[in-house]
């Protein structure tokens, strides 16, 4: 049984509900029964639209997948405010390496509205080809239309690898696509490489809250899909001379058939709007601060350095600082040039979020704190003395220049 979709004529009542659900206009109703036309790409978008269970969607069993049909590395783009997200650029960098090893092309799947200019940017960052789908319906990410379009194109072009950022978008979209096409999906990867003999994607990811690492293979199913954690892979230096092939795909999407509506976008006010993941320097506070008000020490040091303020889970749980400052397994993964950890013991969950920072300074009064195992420079001392002294010295230092 290969991947297959058909209509059970006994159940179909010819109600035409599925027509609106098909992004490819590939269903017609003749003599009171629906039928798929050649245009069907097996995206499965129609299945749930049928209230009578008349659309039968059969997924392939793994031994029946002919893996040799699948070629090429794909990255699914994430865009924000008309720009490619950092993680997409990082994935292009990593995808380039994988594609070169396999000697296959690297493509970006770019969905949106008015996003065409980004295609050439993708080229600068390593893409050979961009599959471009533009539609008003795709202006904002929503699960259903993105899944339908992506599944259609994956079925049409059969990439062997599909990478998505492990962001709130990627982790919403990835599993939906994977479930529809019966592919394996490795979550939140921090390492990718090609197994030279089998030409398989070896995907490495943390699990159990960062306590262990697991390497995962998808031997039989295709494509091999992975979501990849932001700030782990390196983007390439852009090469403005690199050309990219643009393949524009036509879909007919209809807002009326999309049941989920975005009602409102709410942004928080105030100076707390730090984007930790973009910060070059982060000063973080932990339980050693003892009280909410002592975050003032951290903020003061951060101000002098032009740094963002981070926090350990303990301080967030204690309500000393809002959750979006949290660094670690359940918070944000960061990779700044300089990470200063003050009064943070360094539980694995925290280390999972910051240990790949370029330079780590740890200030802690407990000489046995695990944070010292990852610190480039460790200061065993009372943070209530060290941090103000450092702030003062830096003020002097910067003042002199």
């Amino acid at each position: 049984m290969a991947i297959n979709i058909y209509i059970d004529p006994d159940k179909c009542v010819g109600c035409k509900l599925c027509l609106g659900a098909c992004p490819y206009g590939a269903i017609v109703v003749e003599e009171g029964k629906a039928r798929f036309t050649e245009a069907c790409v097996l995206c499965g978008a129609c299945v749930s639209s049928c209230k009578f269970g008349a659309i039968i969607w059969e997924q392939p069993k793994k031994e029946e997948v002919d893996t040799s049909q699948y070629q090429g590395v794909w990255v699914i783009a994430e865009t924000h405010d008309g720009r490619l997200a950092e993680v997409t650029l990082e994935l292009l960098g990593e995808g380039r390496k994988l594609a070169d090893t396999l000697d296959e092309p690297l493509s970006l799947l770019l969905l949106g509205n008015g996003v065409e200019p980004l295609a050439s940017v993708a080229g600068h960052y390593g893409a050979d080809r961009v599959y471009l789908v533009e539609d008003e319906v795709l202006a904002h990410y929503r699960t259903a239309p993105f899944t339908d379009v992506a599944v259609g194109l994956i079925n049409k072009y059969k990439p062997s690898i599909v990478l998505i950022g492990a962001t709130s978008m990627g982790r919403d979209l990835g599993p939906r696509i994977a479930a529809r096409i019966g592919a394996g999906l490795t979550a939140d990867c921090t390492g990718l490489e090609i197994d030279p003999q089998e030409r398989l994607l070896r995907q490495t990811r943390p699990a159990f809250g960062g306590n262990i690492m697991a390497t995962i293979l998808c031997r039989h199913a295709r494509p091999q899909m992975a979501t990849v954690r932001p700030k782990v892979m390196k983007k390439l230096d852009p090469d403005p001379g690199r050309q990219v092939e643009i393949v524009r795909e036509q879909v007919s999407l209809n807002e009326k058939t999309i049941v989920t509506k975005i009602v409102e976008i709410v942004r928080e006010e105030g100076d707390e709007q730090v984007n930790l993941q973009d910060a070059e320097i982060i000063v973080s506070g932990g339980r050693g601060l003892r009280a909410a008000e002592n975050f003032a020490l951290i903020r003061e040091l951060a101000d002098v350095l032009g740094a963002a303020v981070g926090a350990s889970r303990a301080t967030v749980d204690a309500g000393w600082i809002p959750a979006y400052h949290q660094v670690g397994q359940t918070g944000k993964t960061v990779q700044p040039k300089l990470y200063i950890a003050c009064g943070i013991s360094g539980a694995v969950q925290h280390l999972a979020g910051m240990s790949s920072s370029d330079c780590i300074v740890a200030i802690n009064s407990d000489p046995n704190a695990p944070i010292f195992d990852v610190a480039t420079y460790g200061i065993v001392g009372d943070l209530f003395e060290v941090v103000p002294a450092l702030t003062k010295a830096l003020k002097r230092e910067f003042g002199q220049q």
Partner: protein
Amino acid sequence: MHFIVCIKQVPDTTEVRIDPATNTLVREGVPSIINPFDENAIEAALQLREKHGGKVTVITMGPPQAEQALREALAMGADEAILISDRAFAGSDTLATSYTLARAINKIGDYDLVLCGKQAFDGDTAQVGPGLAEHLGIPQVTYAIDAQIVDGRLRVKRLLESYFEVVETPLPALITCVKQMNEPRHAGLRGVMKARKAQIPTWTAQDIEADVERCGLTGSPTNVIRVFPPQRHRAGEKLEGDVEQVVQTLISKLREAKVL
């Protein structure tokens, strides 16, 4: 209204170790808990039930001892619990898990909202919720920090990286719940005592008419081929001396390394 909550029993992660000799997980002696995000999902379901009436059913796919997690959920106030357990489900990845849960939910039949946790503490993938919604053919709303039913439609506030998004979708639907959504209640003693005595049915692959080819290891495209402890960075330099001196040394080191 019928609310179905999917819960997973997980080890308390901070205590998980790897046996260096065999390179496998040491789960022995590690306490098992309800996945913390799933407690938020239970709480959300209980609150919705309190507002709109109806019942809350909790389900889990897991080994027989996962029944304990269901009893804890009953103690919190869930009305019914079902254990989905069969040797055939062993080794399920998220695809097989979401397929199996979907079969069970289809057997339950009537429901309005399925609630999952954002992600499980052990597998940590956050993939079962969306996978399950796909298999059920219903809309999903992930990262819910607030969920209300207004005029028969679901209205959800989503917690995204740097902003909130409010979406509306018809029922039935599936949501995944984040920690900030609510403060899960503690089980009352009456609940604990009642839950102890509750009959919890076990559904096998046959009961839910699951295709065993799509369950367990056989139905799982991903294979974990190796687990290993995370790499520890080698320890760096300790700076010692009086505070002023240490701070000066640090600044000059950071300058040398060009991070300042």
